[in-house]
């Protein structure tokens, strides 16, 4: 049977001020009818550029260096704009990573769905609407009539992604490009979207290209998996084998970086004494002005205690109050309730004195916004050093601690990679020699392989300094590798607190069990 999509020796460069940058190098791939091919690579590997090349929507500095991209035998590279428009949305459709940004905020969802059918199938508004409602039912939207008239901000992330999927499938395309369709979603929502996609795959006898950085996720969904590195396909195998028996060292590295709950990375126990305790801690956003406003409760009466040298894991979906809690403990947000630090009671952020603020440090999710872009690394690190009585002479040692060369001190944040930036943020936190480090989703924006190196670094630092961590993440498998205990947040409340070993048991909260089911362990090797 002939391939739906066939890419042959395709090469692509980006023209930059520093000369041509090779993005894709002699890429050859084929997708058979009804087949889903997984494309796995880290950020910068060229996987998104390949998607752009297939959709023929390349940036203006792209320079194609030869090769063919054939859809049903027809070379897309030779088509003009009107003929490409007839193909986009009709024969190739795309599901994007973040439904929050890929939907127009000022257009009703139904309109964004039905316009594809009006455009390609020549339907009038009425019939397009009927079709759209039927499609919304097929993507398991419970109240299609209501969703049809709503705007993106009025529905949940999962519902948005379902609308995006319905839009992609509206004209029964030959090929669907799935660009990390679950990455921007919560764990539970992502798992449900993946279930939906698996079902629709058969219903629509869909052929697809599934692009992701997560080898474990892709090998569960795709039939075959291709691994891309620096613009080259390094390995291509059937999905079940590639994860279990990768041929290339690089693929092996990717497979190893995926967190596996059965492989504990922390063996020592936590200390006995309480380091930081909280009783009935609440955080509210907004305050009444003029007339009573609606006050949003972010965290409601949470109590727990973190012990010395403990890795205290915290998990929950976005909006569950994890970050608000972290910020309250770091002294950034006002709170109610009691915080105890080494036995000393703190009732207000104002009572968090210099000693407390030194001992409790926080690292944020996004180093791009938490590092001052106009300061060199040396300046970024010098401030906490001076503030806490050390000298800038310690900068080389700090950088060495986070495995960065001392020469990086002269660089600006934009001259560093994502992983390096996060290391600088960690070094800044350790400049104060904290006793507790709050890690707020610090690996969420990093590739799996970079994440595993950052985790290794944190564990090494803990061995040297005896630091305790409040480790907030949405990756339960990661927590099962490193945390002593796991706290589960749901809608501002602490619904479960378990020793990591007890998570597999029966005595867990229903929501925790849902999370465990939604985070399947990778196929073990």
């Amino acid at each position, binding site marked *: 049977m002939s391939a739906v999509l066939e890419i042959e020796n395709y090469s692509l460069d980006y023209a930059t001020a520093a000369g041509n940058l090779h993005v894709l190098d002699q890429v050859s791939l084929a997708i058979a009818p009804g087949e889903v091919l997984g494309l796995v690579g880290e950020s910068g590997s060229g996987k998104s550029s390949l998607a752009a090349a297939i959709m023929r929507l390349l940036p203006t500095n792209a320079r194609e260096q030869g090769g063919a991209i054939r859809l049903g035998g027809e070379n897309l590279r030779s088509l003009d704009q009107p003929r490409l428009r007839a193909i986009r949305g009709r024969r190739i459709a795309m599901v994007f990573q973040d439904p929050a940004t890929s939907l127009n905020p000022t257009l009703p969802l139904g309109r964004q769905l039905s316009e594809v059918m009006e455009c390609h199938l020549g339907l009038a508004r009425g019939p397009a609407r009927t079709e759209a409602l039927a499609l919304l039912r097929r993507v398991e939207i419970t109240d299609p009539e209501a969703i049809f008239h709503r705007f993106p*901000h009025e529905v949940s992330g999962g519902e948005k992604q379902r609308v995006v999927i319905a839009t992609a499938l509206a004209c029964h395309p030959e090929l669907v490009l799935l660009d990390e369709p679950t990455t921007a979603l919560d764990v539970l929502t992502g798992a449900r979207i993946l279930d939906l996609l698996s079902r629709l795959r058969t219903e629509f006898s869909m052929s697809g290209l599934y692009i992701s950085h997560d080898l474990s996720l892709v090998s569960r969904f795709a039939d075959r998996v291709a691994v891309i590195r620096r613009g080259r396909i390094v390995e291509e195998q059937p999905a079940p084998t590639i994860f279990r028996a990768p041929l290339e060292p690089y693929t092996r590295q990717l497979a190893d970086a995926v967190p596996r709950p059965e492989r504990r990375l922390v063996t020592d126990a936590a200390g006995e004494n309480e380091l930081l305790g909280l009783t009935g801690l609440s955080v509210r956003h907004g305050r009444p002005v003029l007339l009573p406003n609606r006050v949003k409760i972010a965290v409601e009466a949470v109590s727990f205690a973190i012990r010395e040298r403990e890795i205290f894991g915290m998990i929950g979906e976005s909006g569950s109050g994890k970050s608000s809690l972290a910020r309250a403990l770091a002294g950034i947000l006002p709170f109610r309730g009691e915080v105890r630090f080494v036995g000393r009671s703190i009732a207000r952020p104002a009572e968090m004195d210099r000693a407390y603020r030194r001992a409790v440090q926080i690292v944020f999710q996004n180093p791009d916004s938490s590092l001052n872009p106009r300061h060199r690394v040396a300046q970024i690190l010098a401030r906490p050093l001076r503030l806490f009585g050390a000298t800038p002479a310690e900068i080389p040692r700090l950088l060495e601690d986070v495995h960065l060369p001392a020469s990086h001190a002269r660089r600006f944040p934009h001259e560093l990679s994502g992983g390096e930036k996060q290391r600088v943020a960690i070094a800044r936190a350790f400049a104060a020699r904290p006793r507790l480090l709050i890690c707020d989703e610090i690996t969420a924006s990093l590739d799996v392989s970079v994440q595993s190196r950052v985790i290794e670094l944190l564990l090494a630092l803990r061995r040297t300094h005896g630091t305790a961590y409040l480790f907030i993440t949405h990756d339960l498998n990661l927590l099962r590798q490193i945390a002593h205990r796991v706290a589960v947040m749901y809608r501002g409340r602490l619904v479960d607190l378990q020793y990591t070993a007890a998570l597999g048991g029966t005595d867990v909260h229903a929501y925790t069990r849902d999370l465990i089911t939604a985070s399947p362990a990778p196929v073990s090797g």
Partner: protein
Amino acid sequence: MSLLWLMRRLLLIAYTMIVVSVVVFAITEALPADAATMILGQNATPAALAALRARLGLDAPVWLQYWRWVWPALHGNFGISMRTNLPVAPAMLAALSRSLMLAAAAILLMLLIAVPLGLAAALGRSGPIDLIAGLVSYLGVSLPEFVTATMLLILFADRLGWLPATGYVSPARHLVDGVRHLVLPVVTVALVMVAHVVRMLRSETIDVMASDYIRAAHLKGLPPRVVLFRHALRNALLPVITVVALDVGYVLGGIIVVEQIFAIPGIGRALIVAIQSRDLPSIQAGALMMAGTYAVVNLLSDIAYALLDKRIRYE
């Protein structure tokens, strides 16, 4: 947008007006010569001054003077003009209505020029239209309106003789002549705003066109026309509303100069005359009316924003 929000905004406008009225009253109080000196002149005897002060109520405590002014003002009575001895309110309202017509015409003209120009500049980025739009913007921003007005007068009224130089004819009474008198002042006022809006719309459109949802719209295979008008335009125009509302503040200020140059009997010219003759009731009424107009326009822009952008829900 809830009723509660609307009530709160109206409350806020009332609050603003109270503050403005106090400030306006305080400023006129702080003028070096009081009303009695103004009326009787420098050489008046102290006895005559004291008598007049007593008659005008100027010897009463300040808060009582404020109250005696603000309470009738609330009922539309701003007192008697010291210059004309006629009631202030009807004269100032008539002047305000002429100014508002001038401002509305200028804003309309500005939008007709700026929206297509800003869009074209963004879409043909770094092309000839973008260059022209940039040039027009810089000229508009950097030339003060008295320079633009003078240049327009020299060219169109003096050299070419196409349009009347100054004066005002009510368009309601004589349409063609009225409009001919309005053209030059309207163009002058519009020019600076064109600059603001073109620059704003250009950068907004560039941002919107680079956004994920526009990329998604292209990838749906929609024709460029549909992508631009259905998906991009509304989102790019939204921030322009705010700029236009802010520009109304500029118009109310700039109109004073323009009305003076073109001899249009609007609120700006009325204020200048009132200030020159120390006509306190007229100054107070004019300043209050301008502040009120600005507050109302801002409320209207907020409402328009909410109607166009469904994400905004005032609570």
